[in-house]
């Protein structure tokens, strides 16, 4: 199973994760 997020954000939004990285629920995905 997979969850896909698609969202609008200011162009300054930066992901704080890497492809292949394990994440846990509640972990930050990015910052403005």
């Amino acid at each position, binding site marked *: *199973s*997979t*969850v*896909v*997020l*698609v*969202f*609008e*954000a*200011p*162009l300054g*939004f930066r*992901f*704080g*994760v*890497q*492809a*292949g*990285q*394990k*994440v*846990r*629920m*509640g*972990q*930050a*995905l*990015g*910052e*403005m």
Partner: protein
Amino acid sequence: LKNAWNATQVKWYPIPVGLGIAFIGFQHSRHIRKREWQRLREEAEAQAEAQGRPRVVVEGPWQVRVAAALPLRSLSRLWGWFNNLNIPRPLRIPGFKLYSFLFGCNLEEMKNPDLRTYSNLSEFFYRELKDGARPIENSPLVSPSDGKILHFGVVEGRNIEQIKGKTYSLDALIGGKSAGNTTDILASSQSANIVNEEKFANINDIPYSLDTLLGSDPAAGVKAESIVGPDGTVRTKGKLAADTTGNARAILKRTDLEPEVRDHHRPAEGHGLFFCVIYLAPGDYHRFHSPTNWVVEARRHFAGEFNKDVELHGELFSVSPYMVKLLENLFVLNERVVLNGRWQYGIFSMIPVGATNVGSIKINFDEALKTNRREDLPGGTYTEVSYRSADPFVGGKQLVPGEEMGGFCLG
């Protein structure tokens, strides 16, 4: 070989009449089938065009062809049935410990650590976590679930990158523009006790037409759906006895109150569209939570399936990283629930995508949603419901970061 070729006598026999007829019948059935596929293809193309989304078909190497030939949805339902069978109590602890060892489940963080109380693998798979096991970080966007980041980035030209060099269409993933023909989830949900509008009709055991009796006004987007009698029975036609005062309560369901057509994927000036794909492995905690503070306005359920040669929507391919690399348009082909809404920066969509082993998707605030069912819609279509009446003030279902939204179930 030369001798055999030259010396072997060729004998000719008449073809039996029955065989000839069977051959003609076979050819004719092939012709009819081809014509039917062509008709379905044209219908799917017309539907896709009307909904403003491209058509997608299965493409990939031979492994993909093999997977596409399998009855994955039936297998998924069979898998779900099997995993709902109760496990004998003495086998539960060793069985779940073996599963945990194989798939890397962390038993320490379970809310209910007594393995004997999980009667089958489905219950164990959908286990809850201890309070505080997953602290919610102070960030505008947090992960909705445990898992592995498959891919993330910016949506370029309405296309989302699946792997390097291969993309799939945003329009196909979340559907085109809403045509405004949504139905109201709370009015249609059996457990709902909220109605949009009530009206009392004075009737006295007479045949009625809802539209004339209750004053439906299609121009205003109001349509009478049913009448609730004094005894609580819901009727849509026929006779209905009024109560002692001669009244029966009518429920009016709004079909559309917004005249403008919504567009779910147009960012504002200075904004962009971003995406992030998280894969949940079999051993992961399989509930998902709200990733931010947002309002879910509507959900779309892409579930229909018909002939694989025409179009696939709502199939249940594996979504493992291996398959993601092989099968183009994987997330567009699989059954999924698209939750469309908005957050402080604009539009926000969250899309739980089903897979062969985990085909059922639950949304806690949507009891009407049933996934991985045999009786689904024609391929290329989706059903859409609005959550507007969940909270008319904000126009949908409001969620805070970390709030449990639903989850994936086995089969």
